[in-house]
C-alpha cells in the first residue's frame, strides 16, 4: 500500500510536474532523440513512449507491467519484459528490473561492509569516550568525530583516493569493483577504501550517539545495582550499560542501513561503484524516467522494510515493548 503511494508520487514528480510547468509530449520526447532530430522524429518518439496518452493511462500501463509484464518493440525484434517489469529504459533499451537486481549486490556489499566497520568503530569509540568522559581520549575522539560528521563523503572520498590509491598505491583506484563471486580478494580490495570512507562518516555519528546514550544509561539506577552486585566493571559497562544504550542506536542503524541499500549515492559516485546509487544518479543525469522510477521504488521498498524490521527488532531488544 505504502509502496503504491510512493510509486504514484514518484510517477507524478517525473511525469505530472513537467506537464504542469508547460512541457508538451514533444518537449519530453526531445530528451530521447538526437541533436539532429526532425520534428517528425520527435513526434514519432513521443508517440512510441506513450506521452500523448492521459497520465492515468501511462501510470496504469506502468503498474500493469509490474504484474503481468509488457512487450517492447525494438525494430527488428520485440522484447518481452516479464513480470515484475519495472519499466523499460528509454535510453539503454533494457528492462529496468534485471538491472536493479544486477546492481543490488554492489550496494549490498558496500553497505554491509561499511556497516560492520562503522558499528565496530562507532560503538567502541563512543563507549570508551563515555566511560572516560573529559579525558584526552574522549576529547580527541569527539573532535575526530565532529570532523568526520562534518566532512562530506565527496571530500573525504576524493582525498583518500588521491592519497591512498594514486599517491601511495595502497588501495584500489576508483571503479575497480569485482563481484564477490568472481574473486573475494579483489572484491575486498576494491571496496576497502569505500568501506572506510563511508564507515568514517557513519562511525563518527555513531560514536557521538553511543557516547550520549552511554552517558545517560551509566547514570541509571540499575548500573548502580550492577556494581553493588560486585560485577566486574567491564560487565557493568557492556552487559548493563551498552546493552541499554544500544536500543535507540539500533533504530537509527536500521533506518540508516535501509536508506543505504537504496544506494549510497555519494560514495558510489566518488568511487564509481556500479551500485543502485550510481544507477540512480546516472538515470537522473540521462533523464531516463523508467530507471528513475524503478530505483526510487526499490529504495523506498528498502526503507519501508528496514522500518518494519526495526520495529520487530525493537520488541526483541526491549522486553517492555513486547505485547502481552
Amino acid at each position, binding site marked *: 500500500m505504502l509502496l503504491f503511494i510512493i510509486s504514484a508520487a514518484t510517477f507524478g514528480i517525473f511525469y505530472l510536474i513537467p506537464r504542469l510547468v508547460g512541457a508538451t509530449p514533444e518537449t519530453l520526447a526531445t530528451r530521447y532523440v538526437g541533436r539532429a532530430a526532425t520534428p517528425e522524429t520527435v513526434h514519432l518518439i513521443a508517440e512510441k513512449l506513450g506521452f500523448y496518452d492521459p497520465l492515468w493511462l501511462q501510470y496504469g500501463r506502468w503498474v500493469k507491467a509490474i504484474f503481468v509484464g509488457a512487450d517492447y518493440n525494438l525494430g527488428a525484434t520485440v522484447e518481452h519484459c516479464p513480470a515484475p517489469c519495472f519499466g523499460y529504459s528509454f535510453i539503454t533499451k533494457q528492462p529496468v528490473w534485471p538491472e536493479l537486481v544486477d546492481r543490488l549486490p554492489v550496494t549490498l556489499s558496500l553497505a554491509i561492509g561499511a556497516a560492520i566497520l562503522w558499528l565496530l568503530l562507532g560503538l567502541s569509540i563512543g563507549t570508551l569516550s563515555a566511560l572516560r568522559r573529559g579525558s584526552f581520549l574522549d576529547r580527541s575522539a569527539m573532535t575526530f568525530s565532529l570532523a568526520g560528521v562534518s566532512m562530506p563523503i565527496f571530500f573525504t572520498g576524493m582525498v583518500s583516493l588521491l592519497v591512498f590509491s594514486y599517491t601511495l598505491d595502497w588501495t584500489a583506484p576508483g571503479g575497480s569493483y569485482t563481484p564477490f563471486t568472481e574473486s573475494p580478494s579483489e572484491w575486498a580490495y576494491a571496496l576497502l577504501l569505500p568501506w572506510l570512507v563511508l564507515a568514517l562518516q557513519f562511525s563518527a555519528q555513531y560514536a557521538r550517539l553511543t557516547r550520549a546514550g552511554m552517558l545517560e544509561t551509566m547514570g541509571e539506577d540499575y548500573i548502580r545495582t*550492577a*556494581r*553493588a552486585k*560486585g560485577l*566486574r566493571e567491564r560487565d557493568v559497562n557492556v552487559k548493563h550499560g551498552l546493552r541499554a544504550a544500544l536500543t535507540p542506536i539500533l533504530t537509527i542503524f536500521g533506518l540508516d542501513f535501509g536508506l543505504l541499500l537504496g544506494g549510497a549515492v555519494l560514495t558510489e559516485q566518488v568511487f564509481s561503484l556500479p551500485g543502485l546509487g550510481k544507477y540512480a544518479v546516472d538515470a537522473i543525469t540521462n533523464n531516463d524516467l523508467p530507471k528513475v522510477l524503478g530505483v526510487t521504488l526499490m529504495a523506498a521498498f528498502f526503507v519501508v522494510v528496514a522500518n518494519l524490521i526495526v520495529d520487530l527488532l525493537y520488541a526483541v*531488544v526491549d522486553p517492555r515493548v513486547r505485547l502481552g
Partner: protein
Amino acid sequence: MPDGQAFLEVKDLKIHFPTDDGVVRSVDGLNFKLERGKTLGIVGESGSGKSVTSLGILGIYNHRNSKISGEIWLDGKEIVSASQDDVRKLRGNQMAMIFQDPLSAMHPYYTVGHQIVEAYRVHHNVSKKVARKHAVDMLGRVGIPQPDRRVDDYPHQFSGGMRQRAMIAMALVNDPHLLIADEPTTALDVTVQAQIMDLMHDLQAEFNSALIVITHDLGVVAELADDVLVMYGGRCIEYASAATIFEQPEHPYTWGLLGSMPRMDRPVQERLVPIAGSPPSLINLPKGCAFSPRCVYEERTGGLGTTVVPELTRAGGTNHLVRCHLPTEERQRLWVEEVKPKLEA
C-alpha cells in the same frame, strides 16, 4: 574479634567531591559500629549524606572524582585502603544492598531470574543451571508465589511489592553478612511497606546479618532498628538506641523529625509538622552549628550556634551522643516541658 573490634566499624569517614563550585562534603567525619544480628537506622533528610555513606561502605563511588578518607572495618578487613578489586569481591557477597526504587534499580532488559543468577555467579563458580535453581529458591524464600515461573519474568511484569521482594532476593542470594537497605519501602504503598519490613526483619534473624536501614522515615526505624544515627549536613548529630531516640531525644533536629513522623492515631492534616527551612548546602555549610539557621533555640546558645561547630558529646541516655551547644539539662527540660507535650497533644 581482633582488638575487640565490632563487625562493622566506621572511623572518621569523610567522602568529599571536589567540583568547579567547591568541595561537596557529603560525609564529613562519621563514626559508628555495628554487630551482626543488629540493625542500625541512619536517618536524615535527602542530602544529609546518608546514601553516600552506604555507597561509600560498598565502595561504589567514582574513584576519579571523589576523595574518601577514614577507615571502614568489615569483619576485620579495612576497606577504604583496599584495592578496588578486593572491595568488588566483597560487594554483593559479604555486603549487599537493597535500593529504593526497584523498578529503576533492576535492569529493564533482563529477566528477574537472569539478574539474580548473574549476582550469584559473580561470586560462585557454578553453572547457570545451579545458579538458576538457587535463584528460584531465593525468590520462594522472599515470598514470591510460583517462583519457578516468575523467575523468567521481566521486572516490569512484577508488582511494586514483588519487585522489592525480588530485589531483596537478589541482595541476599550470596548470604551477605552486612545488608544495607536504602529507603527500602519508600516507593511502596503502606500495606506492602509493612510486609516488606516484616520480611526484612525475619530474614535478618535468619541470616544473622548486620543491617543498616537508611531512611528519612522514623517509622521504619521504629520498626526495625536497634540503634539510630541521625545525620545532618554530612555529620552525625545524634546517636542513640532506638528506645532513647523515641523516648528522650536531645537534638532539636531529631525533635523536628519526630514531629514530622506520620502516626496512625492522628488525622492526616495534623500529623506532619515539617521542620522550617531547607537542608544546608554541602559546599557552604552554615557557620557554627550546621542546623543553627533552622533551630528554634538558636538564641539560647549565646551566639555559639553561629560561630562554633558543636562537638558530638555524651548525652542523657546510655551510649547516647548529641552534637548541640545547649547544655544537656536544658535539652532534657525542653524535651519534657515543651516538645513532648506538643507531639502528644
